[in-house]
């Protein structure tokens, strides 16, 4: 009998679980979605000068103008994925 109850509960969880999870995630997304970046494709990229990890160099966006494309990868914190 106990085993049957457990099975029923498991079945209920399998059925409702994913839905509840999706709903929760959707709500979380709605609340926490950060605003879209203000820059659009075709805009001029704002220039900057920042220090690199060697402390020796300041790297500026204008250094590459007319020479190279720049893949600018903003990341949230060091020691995270991506």
């Amino acid at each position, binding site marked *: 009998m106990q085993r049957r109850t457990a099975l029923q509960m498991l079945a209920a969880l399998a059925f409702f679980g994913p839905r509840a999870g999706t709903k929760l995630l959707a709500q979380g997304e709605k609340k926490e979605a950060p605003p879209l970046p203000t820059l659009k494709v075709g805009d001029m990229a704002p*220039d900057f000068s920042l220090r690199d990890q060697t402390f020796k160099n300041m790297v500026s966006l204008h250094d590459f103008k007319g020479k190279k494309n*720049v*893949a600018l990868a903003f990341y949230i914190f060091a020691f995270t994925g991506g």
Partner: protein
Amino acid sequence: MQAFQANLKKLEAADTQVLGVSMDSPFSNAAWAEKINVTFPLLSDWGGDVTKQYGLYDEKRKIGRRVNFLIDKDGKIAEIQLDNDAIDPTELVTSCERRKLKS
């Protein structure tokens, strides 16, 4: 950033300079670059001025955001990849290679 390092040769061959930017200090960037063997510049936007200028600063959570901008040789934004799309640079590599062919 590891994924960018793995694709660095391809990106460089397509005339593309990779720059990582975060609100970390140069100290933590140095430690991290060493740990994951990153050879391209990791720039420290300490204080978040550039992150704000690019519209990526989350006021509520006081953090930046994972975004890639591909900036062309004229200084214009050619592509933007947000959040999870920004982690895998494959698309970026393809588009840089395409650009290289065009020019």
